[in-house]
């Protein structure tokens, strides 16, 4: 008898309850790789169209339509090109891709094979965050199984299509999650983003067309191809269809990864899925989309719907879907300090506004350590952050500036107090 995947409720985590599903045999018994096989009988263009119709938006953070992005890719099937899966997942608060891959590597591989067939890429790489050693091993094993079954390699299933897939481990740099930084790193260079244009879809890895997609984006492809774009749109809103993984951390009773339809309220996520704020404490604030997303105060947190539009309308962004819950015990100055330390440490240092700005913002916030802090430093911090935005090669500078400005907007008083209060020793 077949284990059946619980497809009704989930597009991504439907197999996760099945013990041992990371083994190809068990995955297949539950219906895995069936969609892939069916897709080989479909016209690649029709697959791209279906994905476009589904309205799937890139889950790496920017939320750009996957189907539209695929549409920019060359249709020349003989041209050498690459499919690059972004599994670098380093944004503080984000751990959904890790969970997906660890429990069910085959859903990603199946998604990548279908995508490769649609896009006509002959080679693929899964660029995985260096710290995810265990997950990389799981992927390696799963890829081996897929090769053994003839799903990867030359002439897949006798369809005359070749696709090789490799795992490449990063070395722990956040910036290698930015797609062109990842390409530099994969090329053996220092992990530094490249100037755009040209975009990777035109000139990417080794100067050849390269499609970069997030783990979660690629893992959603089998479901979309099995049940169709319309079924996918049953969830979420018109502009944010489908389900999304959220990784919730911080002051909740049950942190972890959940899959819910887009547009689920943050209140439901915290109270129902995560068992509420820990110790019955009062909610103070929520960072809704990873460390780069501007923070919400408690009030906004309780009314926001977790879809791309509503989060944006309230002044933040859905980002990678990393929800960080902060209760009344938290000091916002400390939260900002950790955030700024992170971006200072991770700036690749190419662009002047980012290289100098990330370091300076941290110094401004820490002026009390050298005894020169003033209340007006917060104003300077705001101005500095503002002048970093929209000026650089990649979005890291904005990713550092946005949460800073967001924090100042919501918690200015607390920050002014923070910078001028010297801790008693």
């Amino acid at each position: 008898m077949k284990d059946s995947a619980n497809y009704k409720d989930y597009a991504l985590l439907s197999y996760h309850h099945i013990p041992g599903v990371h083994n190809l045999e068990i995955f297949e018994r539950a219906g895995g790789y069936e969609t892939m096989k069916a897709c080989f009988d479909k016209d690649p263009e029709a697959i791209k169209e279906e994905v476009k119709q589904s309205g799937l938006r890139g889950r790496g953070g920017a939320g750009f339509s996957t189907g539209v992005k695929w549409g920019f890719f060359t249709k020349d099937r003989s041209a050498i090109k690459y499919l690059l899966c972004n599994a670098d997942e380093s944004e503080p608060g984000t751990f959904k891709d890790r969970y997906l891959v660890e429990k069910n590597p085959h859903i990603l591989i199946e998604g990548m094979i279908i995508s490769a067939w649609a896009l006509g890429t002959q080679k693929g790489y899964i660029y995985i965050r260096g710290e995810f050693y265990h997950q990389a091993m799981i992927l390696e094993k799963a890829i081996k199984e897929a090769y053994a079954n003839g799903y990867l390699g030359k002439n897949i299933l006798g369809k005359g299509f070749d696709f090789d897939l490799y795992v490449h481990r990063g070395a722990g740099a956040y910036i290698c999650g930015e797609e062109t930084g990842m390409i530099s790193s994969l090329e053996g260079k220092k992990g530094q983003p490249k100037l755009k244009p040209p975009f990777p879809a035109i000139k990417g890895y080794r100067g050849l067309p390269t499609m970069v997609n997030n783990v979660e984006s690629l893992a959603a492809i089998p479901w979309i191809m099995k049940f169709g774009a319309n079924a996918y749109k049953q969830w979420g809103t018109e502009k944010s269809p489908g389900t999304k993984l959220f990784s919730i951390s911080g002051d909740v009773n049950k942190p972890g990864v959940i899959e819910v339809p887009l547009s689920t309220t943050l209140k439901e996520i915290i109270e129902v899925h995560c068992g509420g704020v820990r110790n019955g404490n009062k909610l103070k604030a929520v960072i809704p989309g990873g460390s780069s997303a501007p923070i919400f105060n408690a009030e906004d947190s309780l009314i926001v719907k977790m879809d791309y539009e509503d989060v944006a309308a309230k002044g933040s962004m859905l980002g990678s879907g990393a929800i960080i819950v902060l209760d009344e015990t938290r000091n916002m100055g400390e939260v900002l300090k950790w955030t700024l330390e992170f971006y200072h440490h991770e700036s690749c240092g190419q662009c002047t506004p980012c290289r100098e700005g990330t370091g300076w913002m941290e110094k401004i916030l820490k002026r009390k350590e050298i005894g020169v802090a003033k209340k007006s430093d917060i104003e300077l911090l705001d101005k500095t952050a503002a002048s970093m935005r929209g000026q650089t090669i990649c979005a890291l500078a904005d990713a550092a500036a946005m949460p800073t400005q967001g924090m100042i907007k919501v918690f200015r008083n607390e920050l002014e107090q923070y910078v001028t209060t010297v801790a008693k020793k």
Partner: protein
Amino acid sequence: MTEKVKFKWNGKEIEADKGSNLLKAALDNGIEVAHYCYHAGLSVAGVCRMCMVEQDGVPRPFPACNASCGEGIVVRNDTPKIKSSIEATLSFHLLNHPLDCPVCDQAGECGLQDYYMKHGQYDSQMVDKKVHKDKVQDIGRNVMLDAERCILCSRCTRFTEEVTKTHELGILNRGDHAEITVNEKLKNNYAQNLVDICPVGALTSKDFRFKQRVWFLEEVQTTCIGCETGCSVKVSENKNGAFRVKPSYDHEVNGHWMCDDGRNIYKHVSGALRLFGAQENLNGLFVPVDEFKTHQLAKGKTLKFILSTGLTNQEYEKFFEKIKGKSAQVALYVLPNQGEDFDGLLTRGDKNPNLRGARKAFEDAGYDSSQNALDKLLSSVSSNDAIFVVVPEIIYNEDHFNTLISKVEKAGLKIALTHGETLSTLRAFDFLLPIPTFVEKNGDIINFQNKKRALRSGISYGETSKDVSYYAGWVNL
């Protein structure tokens, strides 16, 4: 012909090649655009973010150095939004910069200093500790690195990667801890170009350091006489002499660069051994003498001339005019090849600056410029002769030249026409008579491509009025 397009920059109409670099087109058309990382001779890095522009119909500002000229586009960098972002980016550049202009060699030609005087003042609110880096590093080939002054524009690393392909430099670390790292000491013969392209005073030349403040110097556009390549160069000089040589963009010959050997060609101009007037050899010691004495001694002798390949076309022409119809013998001394024939970039083994011009002038005047003719002249040298040897300005192979000198020994009167007492073997001559150096005369030379390039006089440090043809005039005696 490449297609031309017209576009507008801050309202000014500019015509440029379609698809050519937008920033370059603006700069070429005399528009001042702050930029640190862009260099026309290197790939585009787009990291300094100073050249940001807005374009009608494009939602976000972008760096002009990573854009191309398109028909009818309208770009501006004078909007309030862009102006304020450029000012902010400038202050980011200054944040960790030591601002030690008073002791910096780059002062006066520093990109940072230029722009911060123009775009606003340094934020004196900066109370935070600057990131400290190594300020004095000898990175080889006469280049010094001050890592604190570096603004990480990456021009130098791109140069060693793309132009010389020698990869000595890189950028180590990230964020504001990033700094130029020297993988190995500079080993290429183009290292001084790094000093030129560094937009600030982070890379300086040991040779030029602290010698002269740049605002006391004038630049003269001329041609390098270091080898047959004939790179276009600028010589910086003042009344005290010449102080440095820099390349000057020449699309057909050297592009943006020149070799380090060429940087030294000025040294003899105002060197200690420079000759200012006639000198006589008194038992191995040269002492000033009235030129008239030499003149008298040459009377009645058969005059023989051995010319160098470093004269201008005009000098050769005037020379041959002077001796026309007179019984003087003339031959040409050609410098031997030195090093590899071509290093793949600019430097050539043939060190004769104007061999082609010399040969043509000989031919036009009915003289033989071959080695045979020289050998013939040398074998006929006798006590009846007054021999004039034009000493090449730069002698790479002294032994070879000394062999030539040894062959004129028998002459009754041996005269060196030279800019100075450069070799000990010049003691074999009875008299030294001064001639101008390459920066003290106007004329043309012909390079290895048969292209004409100009020598231009800037200073009159030594002898400038008496050239080889002046002495040829003595044939009339």
